[in-house]
């Protein structure tokens, strides 16, 4: 069975500052990793994904994430946040033996003007 831990439930950050949202996973097999964003009263939008290949993955809206197999992590980063990045961010994992995504509890990012 796989699991996802998002270490921070809330992250406040000033506008134009960098941010890192942390995600650790556990799985006994090779994994696929995803970050989704959920704006208030909206659905889940795929930010980026790691399936294979380069461990540094670039996504939409200037976000990127790095897959670190030895530390079982997939942290999300952005060098300079905007007010519009205020949302909840979910890390998710699936493995090659399963169809389902397992989600973390989410991290609420609040960008302060």
């Amino acid at each position, binding site marked *: 069975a796989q699991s996802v831990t998002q270490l921070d439930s809330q992250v406040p950050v000033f506008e134009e500052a960098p941010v890192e949202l942390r995600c650790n996973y556990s799985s006994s097999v090779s994994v*696929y990793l*995803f970050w*989704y964003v959920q704006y208030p009263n*909206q*659905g*889940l*939008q*795929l930010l980026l*994904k790691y*399936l294979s290949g380069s461990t540094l993955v670039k996504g939409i809206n200037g976000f990127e994430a790095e897959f670190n197999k030895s530390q079982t992590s997939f942290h999300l980063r952005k060098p300079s946040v905007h007010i519009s990045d205020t949302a909840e961010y*979910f890390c*998710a994992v*699936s*493995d*090659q033996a*399963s*169809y*389902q*995504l*397992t*989600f*973390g*509890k*989410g991290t609420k990012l609040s960008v302060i003007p």
Partner: protein
Amino acid sequence: EPEVTQTPSHQVTQMGQEVILRCVPISNHLYFYWYRQILGQKVEFLVSFYNNEISEKSEIFDDQFSVERPDGSNFTLKIRSTKLEDSAMYFCASGPARGEAFFGQGTRLTVV
């Protein structure tokens, strides 16, 4: 850009009633999913559907739940006899490959 569409956006139903939540997945996708998110909790997997049959389901997906792809474009989730604890946001998703999922905007189900 193609997207997953869900109807209705809100559904209020009385306990014990049947509800059907509808979804139109992205047209060239082969894998279809339902997830739910109870207010303040994690997004939880319910069921996956591939090649016209259920490929995987969670413990939540008991006999009260069923899925159907009746006409090659729609994908539905039926809850036969709703309970108060079924109140949640239900997300449909589709994907071109196993494990990848593009989500719809969700249907907020309120059971009263």
